[in-house]
């Protein structure tokens, strides 16, 4: 089922790139057949041999890897190279692990929309299973950090501990309330509001864009879970003081008092003295 979808989608992208049409209309059908045969064969192979990937928490199949390889070749290889070993346009992905793929592709940062100071988030381009396939393929190339176990993603840890860790390790770029902040040369730390627990965990683990890596020795998995707990607490519990004005601190407060506070009061003064004009 999955492979069927994949084959047709890669067929579509092939059609786009080669519009001159030296391919017969049967090409798509034959591709599907080939896809089904290979995945079927791979499945048979998989059941008889133990998986080589011991790193990933979720089990991956050879069929997934193959499917991922195709998706990779069609969507990522231009920059990262056919063998994912990198080119002048993009880094090698050998050993980055499935967590990195799931984060970059799963948040829509990859494939890259345009060259810029850093990869911007955009609507996600692949389905979850496609992302998983690419993650499986990249993970098969070399050992790297894998996607987190779901027990760390439940946001049921110690929020106070997480808040403290967040202030010490994350707030200098992401702001104490996770509202984001500026980095040099147009780069920035994004807002963490609405980011899924899994992606927060993977970002810490893999250090995307300009973010440093916080590996499991640096911040233990349970501590990562605490940080997620804190961020989810902030999301779930609006400020006890009322509207947050973007959680940006004194700048938005100052703008607010000048524009709306003093603005309202000046309007009142004009009203109070209007008669004599």
């Amino acid at each position, binding site marked *: 089922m999955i492979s069927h979808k994949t084959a047709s989608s890669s067929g579509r992208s092939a059609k786009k790139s080669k519009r001159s049409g030296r391919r017969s209309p049967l090409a798509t059908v034959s591709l599907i057949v080939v896809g089904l045969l290979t995945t079927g064969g791979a499945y048979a192979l998989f059941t008889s041999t133990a998986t080589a990937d011991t790193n990933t928490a979720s089990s991956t199949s050879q069929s997934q890897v193959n499917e991922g390889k195709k998706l990779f070749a069609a969507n990522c290889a231009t920059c990262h190279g056919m063998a994912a070993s990198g080119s002048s346009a993009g880094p090698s992905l050998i050993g980055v692990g499935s967590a990195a793929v799931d984060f970059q592709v799963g948040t829509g940062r990859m494939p890259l929309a345009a060259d810029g100071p850093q990869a911007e988030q955009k609507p996600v381009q692949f389905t979850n299973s496609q992302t998983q396939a690419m993650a499986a393929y990249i993970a098969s190339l070399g050992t790297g950090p894998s996607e987190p176990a779901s027990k760390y993603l439940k946001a049921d840890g110690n929020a106070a501990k997480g808040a*403290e860790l967040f*202030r010490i390790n994350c707030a200098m770029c992401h702001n*104490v309330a996770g509202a984001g902040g500026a980095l040099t040369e147009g780069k920035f730390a994004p807002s963490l509001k609405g980011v899924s627990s899994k992606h927060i965990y993977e970002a810490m683990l893999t250090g995307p864009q300009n973010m440093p890596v916080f590996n499991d020795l640096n911040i233990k998995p349970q501590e990562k879970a605490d940080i997620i707990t804190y961020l989810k607490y902030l999301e779930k519990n609006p*400020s006890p003081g009322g509207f947050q004005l973007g959680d940006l601190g004194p700048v938005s407060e100052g703008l607010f008092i000048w524009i709306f*506070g003093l603005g309202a009061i000046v309007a009142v003064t004009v009203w*109070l003295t209007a008669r004599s004009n």
Partner: protein
Amino acid sequence: MGAAANYIDERTSISGLVKEVGRKIFPDHWSFMLGEVALYSFVVILLSGTFLTFFFQPSMAEVTYQGSYVPLKGIDMSAAMQSTLNISFDIRGGLLFRQIHHWAALLFIAAIGLHMLRIYFTGAFRKPRELNWFIGFVLFILALAEGFTGYSLPDDLLSGNGLRIIDGMVKGIPVIGVWISYLLFGGEFPGTAIVSRLYSLHIMLLPALLIAMLGAHLLLLVINKHTQWAGPGKTNDNVVGVPVMPVFAAKAGGFFFIVFGVIVLIASLFTINPIWNYGPYDPSPVSAGTQPDWYIGFADGALRLAPPHWEVVWGGYTVSFNILVPIVVLVGLLGTVAFYPFIEGWITGDKREHHILDRPRNAPTRTAVGAALMTLYAALWGAASSDLMATHFKLSIDQVIHVMQFLTVIGPFIAFWITKRVCLGLQKKDREIALHGHESGRIVRLPGGEYIEVHTPLTEYERWTLVSFNEYEPLMVRPNERGVVTPLERIRASISGFFFEDRISPVTKAEIEASHHESHGAIEEGSGGH
């Protein structure tokens, strides 16, 4: 009622004062109420602040938080931070009072700023009010000090970062800086004394000074009487307006409650300084978007704009020009503001009393200097939010900083030039209108074939406001009684030339009459076409 009043009067002789103050006249204009806004905000600050002192503990003793805010439970912090959190979460109405206090403080200083701009641009600081301007400036500085000490009291991360920046600035002053810092903090930063020291300043010394200065400010206001706009019947020797009793007092009393109400409304709807997000102060973390409250922003911006590596090592001592230059710029800016009335008085040599306000356009150079200083202030102020401008407008923070550096240095000159030209242009237009009236848009063909546009003549009232202003001419360099031209006198003459060489003279009576005769026939014939 009468008996009670009599009882009090026989023992205090207060009726004289009531009669005097009650019959004080206040002119009515919206911009005359800005100082009142500051005064009323201050009253709100005093009331809400008193409530907060009942519960705040100005101590840096270490405690473990066990209050009701979950993401801080079990965290070590100072008693000051803990008590502020308790005010926010565990004392009924505490958070509202905290937010009222803080929002009112922001409004207080914003109102002072707007009030100062009004006084400046209308020339209300001229003799006999120079001293009151200076007292007002001292009030402004005291308000900044009150704001900063208050901002530092909760001992949260943001306030600690702010104190660290001040500590760095103080330490950047050669020779005495480190001594002052150690004296201030009772040892190495942050120490365990600073919160209680700032608390003493915040609730005793600074408010006492503020109230004393405020008293002097208001007393001088009463003694000097209020200024007024030029207008028919308004002269330099009278004040046209309403008496304090009963109209003005009623209006002012109502206005106090409106200001109070606006503050409470804002405080009940909008979070300010969420210390629970910032957490307790710890010297290691600094949050992104760490800024001071708006009124200290210009100082923070000055530091941000100083080029990096502006340091030299002289004889083993580092001299930090990246701190000293901003300090010099800030002191220069504030010093100019503080002494401006005396500077302008010296330049004009005008010893007359002025109770009629200038329209900003009628003092082009003063207005332009004001615009230049505002631009400098705004560039420094804006630079304090350079990081947020970068993230919110998708810019590079480096570019933002460079643009702000450019604006800080060149912006005031551009603002000066543009403002002066605009003022002179507006004066020319006023002159045109005063002489020839408003353009009516009605074109009339004369019997001889000539086309003219009919101008609607001004009423006396309209013309009055357009023609009554002072004209200054550049001072001539004159030798003193010993026949010597001092260098100071030369400087004064050249500044005076700079101020007044470009000027538009007010329309004279003779000119009005001349223009009236000139166009009289045309208007007569024009109105014949009705």
